[in-house]
């Protein structure tokens, strides 16, 4: 009877495609919008995830997320270094500074100052130049997206082209020379990221008593990170988080304090409802239009159980195809947008979520149809 169920389903190509399209749309919305949402949220902690080497981030205890900088005194670095279980501890400056471009315009940039000796905390991927080039005078490394989109210089014919290695810009009236181009994950506000040394970053930054943003800590081999963070907190009175904890804190801050989740949540919910309505209604009307055929099968001796299996098979098939197409389109969308400013992240959990959503739609549509067929009087076949 499976063969008959499939032929019934595919017999009317228009309706068959209608159901598939409805489910594809539902699946697309249920994956694409959350993928953008997750992509945006991932950008909130991208600076932390890009900084791979340290195990622990130490900061002022009032810091709420990665961009909420509350500077420390440089002496805190030495206090952290003195704690047992710490293999090394390095300073990091992170702040927003205005860069003055060749045409006189200003662009706010994230300036990151790395330990002068080790340069720990640098960009994950270098596209041009070496990280060690930061040891040269006035040198900075800038992220490629920031260069391409926001940091540019005018040409003789009035066009604007991105800065390149060897070009210079001004940070707080001080010259900075581009010595390298890096690839970093875009930040939440998509500002250019400029890497330099810690001491040079302090010279770019407005004069303040405290300028140390974070202390990056590597634990001794075999050291329990939870234990070490607790010890750092006890000894220094500072906040100390593992990389994952700091990412979670940042992520949760944005979840709780911005309208992003509710806005995207509404989009996803609407997509789910519209997709469910289209697919459910089309599938139900398909069953209704075939009710006589189900009646014929019932009159000829087909059991309700067999009819139920036939409808479930139809629902599973259209659900799988629609889900596959929707997810495929979302993946295609993400691939096409990979080099753009659009945030997009497609973790496996999203596949499970959307799969469950499409299954739910199909099950509801199938259930309504099944109830209709179960209650069907086979005597309907004698009505002309």
């Amino acid at each position: 009877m499976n063969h008959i169920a499939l032929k019934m389903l595919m017999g009317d190509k228009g309706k068959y495609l209608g159901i598939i399209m409805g489910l594809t749309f539902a699946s697309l919305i249920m994956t694409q919008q959350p993928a953008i949402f997750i992509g945006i949220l991932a950008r909130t902690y991208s600076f932390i995830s890009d900084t791979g080497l340290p195990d622990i981030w130490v900061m002022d205890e009032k810091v709420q997320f990665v961009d909420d900088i509350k500077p420390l005194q440089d002496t805190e670095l030495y206090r952290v270094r003195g704690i047992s279980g710490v293999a090394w501890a390095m300073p990091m400056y992170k702040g927003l500074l205005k860069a003055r471009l060749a045409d006189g315009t200003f662009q706010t940039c994230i300036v990151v100052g790395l330990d002068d000796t080790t340069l720990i905390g640098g960009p994950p991927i270098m596209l041009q130049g070496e990280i060690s080039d930061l040891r040269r005078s006035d040198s900075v490394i800038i992220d490629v997206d920031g260069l391409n989109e926001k940091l540019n210089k005018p040409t003789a014919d009035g066009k604007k082209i991105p800065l390149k290695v060897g070009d210079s810009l001004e940070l707080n009236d001080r010259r900075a020379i581009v010595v390298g181009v890096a690839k970093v994950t875009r930040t939440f506000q998509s500002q250019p990221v400029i890497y330099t040394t810690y001491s040079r970053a302090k010279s770019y930054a407005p004069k303040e008593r405290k300028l140390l943003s974070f202390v990056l800590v590597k634990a001794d081999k075999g050291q329990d990170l939870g234990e070490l963070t607790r010890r750092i907190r006890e000894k220094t009175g500072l906040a100390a988080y593992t990389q994952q904890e700091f990412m979670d804190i940042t992520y949760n801050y944005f979840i709780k304090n911005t309208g992003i989740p509710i806005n995207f949540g509404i989009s996803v919910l609407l997509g789910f409802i519209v997709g469910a309505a289209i697919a459910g209604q089309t599938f139900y009307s398909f069953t209704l239009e075939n009710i006589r055929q189900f009646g014929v099968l019932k009159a000829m001796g087909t059991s309700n159980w067999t009819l139920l299996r036939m409808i479930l098979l139809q629902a599973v098939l259209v659900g799988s195809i629609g889900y596959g197409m929707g997810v495929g389109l979302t993946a295609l969308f993400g691939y096409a947008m990979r080099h753009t400013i659009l945030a997009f992240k497609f973790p496996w959990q999203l596949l499970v979520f959307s799969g469950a959503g499409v299954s739910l739609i199909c099950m509801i549509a199938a259930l309504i149809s099944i109830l209709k067929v179960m209650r069907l009087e086979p005597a309907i076949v004698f009505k002309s």
Partner: protein
Amino acid sequence: MVDAVRCEKLVKIYDAGGQKVVALNGIDLNIKLGELMMLVGPSGCGKTTLISVIAGILDQDSGVCELFGKNVNVMSSKDKLQFRAKNIGFVFQAFNLLPSLNAAENVSIPLIINGEKRTIAERKAIEVLKQVGLGDRWKSYPSQLSGGQQQRVAIARALVHSPRLIVCDEPTSALDHTSGHNVMNLLKEVALHQDRALVIVTHDARIFEFADRIAQMDDGHIIKVT
């Protein structure tokens, strides 16, 4: 010898929006094996209800309806389905072929319901289609066939699993005179034999000549059997 159908004091009452409508009011009827019985009468007289009860797809409120000596009404739902799938063939006024299946696939349905494998069922279906003169059209879909040809496919579907009772509801009403006669000839020649009975509900006076007996119904009663 056991009758194909034995109905005794059959009563069926419908509830139509709070109003009781007596569709069958004490029907007594016997149909013998090898017999072609026609049920005739005005619209609403209970013909369709009677064949629905005879075919085991509607339960009577009281009375007895035995098919081949078995009281279908007291069977479990599962047994009733199996009994129906094995013993009864249907021919409908509107043909009721599945439009997305070709002729062979349509004809093979009763065999598949009875547990036959699809390939074997379709092979048998083609054989029966040959018997009804459509051997060369087994791949055709209902929309590619004329009304007469569709009804012949429906007859092949009613015959393919060798049922002992064939129930036909207005089999000629959607056909022209010639096609109607051809269908009746086919039913009489191919479908009817000593181990099988045919019950035909009809308004079509042009085919009365094919009946062995005619039961005339009115207002839920059989008023005359000729």
